[in-house]
């Protein structure tokens, strides 16, 4: 509790969005001078029963990114066709305004429309209409948030992407779930009575590799998400774990113990051509490819405690990458290849860190003590990770500058092992 209080004092701003869809969304913005773009998202006009709070989803998305400050547009819905006084919104402090409408069509589908205005230049920046089933309404709200994000920041939005993670619901009940990037609309891809760990998306977002203990030992599976078709990729004598896809999706790096301790191997996606990549006397694990496919970063205790190393994809040219602290694990490389994210233990606390691979600057991003499994958003602006609050695993995201931390309220149960999926066409 005292930590919560300390947190509250440490925060320069805690924004609570008190609306049904985002009742538990807590966005913590820390650090001086965070430069947030002021935007107003008016309530959408509803025509008929609309099963999703589309305007609230858009607001929550933009807020979670930490890049925007919400300017209240008032309770009156403003449709995409409404004549609005842009100078009035400019006067309220909003540099951009979003208006829109959601209508139930005669055939049972829904038409979702929005319009984005620049209140400073008094121009329209974007406008679009999505016609969809009820099931796709939420996705289309995320797509609108993505377009707004891109128009206003010049960077691609990630709200319509998906995340995968593992939930333990009871002592012998585990699920690998796939959800929207905000943790909502969770669907189980796999249910098991035994633990599941280390889910990894293929670069095209069609397949997940993961470790399942359903045969009372760790075995690596490859699972096609849309069909549910799955098969054991690595089921060798000993333990099989830590799958990582090569960017081309044709092979993976995995960790096997068939020759003794945990070592890194490459294996084709069809299970053929197993090649040993590391030959150390200790533990080599948690391989991950750099996005350009040139390197594999991994965790090794060859120097004593666990540190992060890098090697060429054929196993040659091994070099140590992390030097501060005596425990650095779970490497992930940013999409542009510039940042390395990992969990570092400092003073007994396990926290998400980044290392700038060009300047060698290390940055601690969180204030929690039991962080695990950092994973970059596909635009490289945020990291998703698992942490613990009151002995329960939860998911949280943090901006790569460490200023914006958000606790995801969507998934229930003991949640762990999150991994952010790629952009999908």
């Amino acid at each position, binding site marked *: 509790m005292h930590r919560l209080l300390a947190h509250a004092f440490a925060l320069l701003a805690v924004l609570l969005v008190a609306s049904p869809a985002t009742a538990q969304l807590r966005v913590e913005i820390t650090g001086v001078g965070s430069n947030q773009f002021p935007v107003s998202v008016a309530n959408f006009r509803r025509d008929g029963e609309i099963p999703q709070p589309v305007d609230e989803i858009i607001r929550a998305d933009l807020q979670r990114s930490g890049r925007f400050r919400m300017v209240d547009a008032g309770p009156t819905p403003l449709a995409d066709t409404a004549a609005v006084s842009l100078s009035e919104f400019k006067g309220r402090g909003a540099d951009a305004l979003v208006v829109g409408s959601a209508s139930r069509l005669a055939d049972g589908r829904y038409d979702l429309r929005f319009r984005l205005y620049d209140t400073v230049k008094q121009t329209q920046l974007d406008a679009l209409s999505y016609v969809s089933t009820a099931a796709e309404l939420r996705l289309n709200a995320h797509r609108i948030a993505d377009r707004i994000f891109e128009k206003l920041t010049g960077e691609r939005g990630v709200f319509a992407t998906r995340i995968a993670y593992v939930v333990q619901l009871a002592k012998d009940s585990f699920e690998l779930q796939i959800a929207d990037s905000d943790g909502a609309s969770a669907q189980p891809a796999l249910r098991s009575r035994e633990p599941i760990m280390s889910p990894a998306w293929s670069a095209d977002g069609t397949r997940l590799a993961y470790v399942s203990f359903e045969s009372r030992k*760790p075995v690596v599976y490859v699972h096609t998400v849309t069909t549910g078709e799955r098969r054991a990729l690595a089921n060798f*004598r*000993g*333990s099989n774990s830590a799958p990582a896809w090569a960017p081309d999706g044709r092979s993976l790096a995995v*960790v096997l113990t068939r020759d003794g301790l*945990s070592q890194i191997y490459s294996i084709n996606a069809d299970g053929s051509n197993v090649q040993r990549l590391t030959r150390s006397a200790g533990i080599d694990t948690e391989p991950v490819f750099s996005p350009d496919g040139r390197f594999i970063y991994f965790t090794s205790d060859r120097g004593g405690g666990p540190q992060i190393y890098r090697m060429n994809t054929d196993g040659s040219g091994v070099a140590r990458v992390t030097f501060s602290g005596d425990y650095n694990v779970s490497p992930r490389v940013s999409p542009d290849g510039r940042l390395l994210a990992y*969990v570092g233990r400092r003073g007994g606390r396990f926290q998400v860190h980044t290392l700038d691979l060009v300047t060698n600057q290390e940055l601690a991003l969180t204030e929690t003590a039991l962080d695990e*499994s950092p994973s970059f958003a596909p635009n490289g602006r945020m990291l998703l990770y698992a942490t613990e609050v009151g002995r329960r695993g939860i998911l949280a995201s943090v901006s790569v500058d460490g200023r914006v931390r958000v606790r995801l309220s969507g998934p229930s149960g003991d949640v762990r092992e999150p991994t952010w999926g790629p952009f999908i066409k």
Partner: protein
Amino acid sequence: MTPNRLIRLATCAAAALLLAACASTPLEEQPAAPVTDASAGAPGTKPGADSRAVASVDATTKGLDPLTDPASPLSKRSVYFDFDSFVVKTEFQGLVEAHGKFLVGNPGRRLVIEGNADERGSREYNLALGQKRAEAVKSRLRLLGAAEAQIETVSFGEEKPVATGSDEASWAQNRRADLNYR
């Protein structure tokens, strides 16, 4: 082990016994199966076998299965480790030796050593730590003469804790290698 944990363990054991008792419901309590073909014999007997035959078991020489005899050192199956350590401590050497001798004397038996780790840190790194503990026990057994093919080492990492507390007493119970004959 705290008294609380002992009570919890005892409760679990009692529950397990109850379950076992349920599983072996006495035959008389089941509804009698309709008699259709007497020549098929009772369950478990081969057709045509003499239903009055008696197969003698000589308990004077055979005794209890040493793996399930609570008096045998083989009934102990867990080796505990210190923090960040893979050394089989002297207090567990007798246990490991007993299993080594058993494997040498019973070359047909197969053993799976399941390594475990406490919850702190990366799940994959903890899986590797559990594997390292299982391997430490295996190399002892190999030195005692057990064959490579008799032993498989796997790891559960931090995924299957026996103690779920967030304190050293719980963590110590989870830094463990279990010996399971299959």
